[in-house]
């Protein structure tokens, strides 16, 4: 029993009692209340309690809910809540009819039964997790969308797979997922995605979906690319699921839960490299990808625009207040995204001025004259995290209708030309891993 099946199972349970349900709901809604953890309770108008016949039916329904919806519900004695005014308890939560209107009028008796979703956003994202000791985890992050983050990640996965490596790719851009379709044709999409696992995990049911959430990409001939998509083929009520993924469970913030998922997948697949597509923005989801997943390296995609630099300023000032900067700064690396064809040198020098100023303000140690110890880099030092790896804008990659097809006939020299600096930058992470295994 998984979250997606709740609606269908509920309809099956209520249908035999349609007449009684109609009586209960003559003047008040009956609510199928799906709480923050994705567990169902029935909220019944109080008048049903005053009618022994109806009360008995409610008890039978509670029993069935408890039997058929576990783990997405409670023991029978906790399934029912009576309320005088069921409209009042909806309280602005997203609500839809249990039966959509286009269904057979045969079920008309259930027309006042509503599904209510208690959703949430938020979480604790100011904790940094120590990096992992096993496969390197590389996070691709950007402030703004559309900077070629997912394309670069896909190209990187492809490149290292061609070298015979096992690459695991996660699409954490849950709100606007795109990465998985770049690496997998739609028919290879697995049944479930990260969103499903995060929802099932709330009721300790993660294993139900774990085996069915990995897609295998056929792009690579020599290595492996495993794709863990944001959502799977079974994809009912995506918004209702999204509104629960940020829930903490037993004191574990959602990002720690996510880390647990990545640990489990890593344990099963034993990849050489883990690439994570974080979402764009400075919200907590994006930030947690950087701070909580045990990343070894975070690639910060940027274009040289005021909006981008202001965004990074906001993000970094938050980090400076909320976390131990020394723990994160060595994992950061700027990436100059979509570098324009013309006036490249001028573009770089402006970029470096901006990113150097940013890192100096937030991350570099202040050095007094004569001091030599300290974490600091010169403006033009190529080892500096502010000194960008470059990804070139290329006509052949702009406005692609299918990134997947582009990768199917990938031209290795073109890939190197555009993304080569990223490949080079990441190579040492794989070598270290290789040595550990010898």
């Amino acid at each position, binding site marked *: 029993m998984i979250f997606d099946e709740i609606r269908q199972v509920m309809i099956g349970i209520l249908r035999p009692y349609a007449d009684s349900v109609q009586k209960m709901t003559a003047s008040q809604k009956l609510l199928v209340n799906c709480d*923050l953890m994705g567990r169902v309770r029935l909220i019944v108008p109080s008048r049903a309690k005053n009618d022994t016949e109806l009360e008995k039916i409610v008890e039978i329904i509670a029993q069935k809910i408890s039997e058929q919806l576990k783990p997405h519900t409670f023991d029978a004695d*906790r399934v029912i809540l009576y309320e005088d005014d069921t409209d009042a*308890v909806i*309280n602005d939560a997203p609500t839809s009819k249990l039966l959509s209107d286009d269904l057979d009028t045969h079920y008309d008796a259930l027309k006042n039964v509503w599904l209510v979703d208690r959703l949430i956003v938020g979480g604790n994202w100011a904790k940094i997790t120590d990096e992992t000791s096993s496969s390197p985890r590389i996070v691709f992050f950007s402030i703004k969308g559309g900077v070629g983050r997912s394309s670069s990640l896909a190209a990187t996965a492809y490149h290292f797979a061609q070298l015979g490596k096992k690459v695991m790719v996660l699409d954490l851009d849950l709100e606007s997922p795109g990465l998985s379709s770049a690496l997998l044709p739609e028919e290879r999409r697995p049944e479930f995605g990260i969103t499903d696992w995060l929802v099932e995990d709330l009721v300790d049911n993660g294993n139900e979906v774990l085996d069915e959430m990995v897609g295998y990409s056929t792009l690579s001939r020599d290595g492996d690319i495993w794709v863990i998509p944001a959502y799977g083929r079974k994809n009912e009520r995506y918004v209702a699921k999204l509104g629960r993924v940020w829930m903490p469970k037993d004191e574990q913030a959602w990002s720690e839960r996510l880390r647990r998922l990545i640990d489990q997948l890593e344990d099963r697949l034993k990849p050489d490299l883990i690439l994570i597509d974080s979402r764009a923005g400075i919200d907590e989801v994006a930030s947690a990808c950087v701070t909580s997943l045990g990343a070894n390296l975070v690639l910060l995609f940027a274009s040289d625009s005021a909006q981008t630099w202001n965004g990074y300023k906001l993000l970094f000032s938050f980090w400076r207040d909320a976390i131990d900067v020394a723990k994160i700064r060595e994992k950061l690396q700027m990436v100059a995204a979509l570098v324009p064809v013309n006036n490249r040198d001028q573009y770089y020098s402006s970029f470096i001025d901006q990113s150097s100023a940013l890192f100096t303000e937030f991350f570099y140690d202040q050095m007094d004259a004569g001091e030599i110890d300290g974490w600091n880099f010169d403006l033009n030092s190529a080892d500096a995290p502010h000194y960008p790896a470059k990804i070139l804008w290329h006509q052949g990659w702009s406005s692609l209708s299918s990134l997947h097809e582009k990768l199917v006939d990938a031209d290795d020299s073109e890939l190197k030309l555009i993304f080569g600096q990223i490949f080079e930058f990441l190579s040492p992470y794989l070598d270290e891993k290789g040595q550990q295994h010898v």
Partner: protein
Amino acid sequence: MNADFKDAHERHWEDAEHLHEKELLANADYLYGLSAECGLKAIMQKCGMKLDGKGSPENKEDRKHINELIPRYNGYRDKFTTFDFEQLPPNLFKDWHVDHRYANRSNFTAQTVQTTYGDAFKIYELVRRAIINGLMK
């Protein structure tokens, strides 16, 4: 016996309602106050209040009756980011005191109990909402 604040909240509430209905005002007033105390402690626990081995609050400041508990609740509530529990006005239960259980019944009027009931109902609703949202079983 270990503390179970949520259950204690519910049973005190039910009994208070019975007594209120029968106009047994003095004890209704008393139990509304206890019900609110237990309900609020149950929520505070959800918001991070730690308990000792016996199930009472670790911090002495939290071992208070309802007339002194609201600021403690608001403090936990402010730090809890997962869910936006309502802030409570600090003047709830300002005329309620646990020692009133020793008082003569003639001190309790329908009016005083109505006020206590109104304040206790705010906490009853708070717990109810926590249950509906799945933060409490």
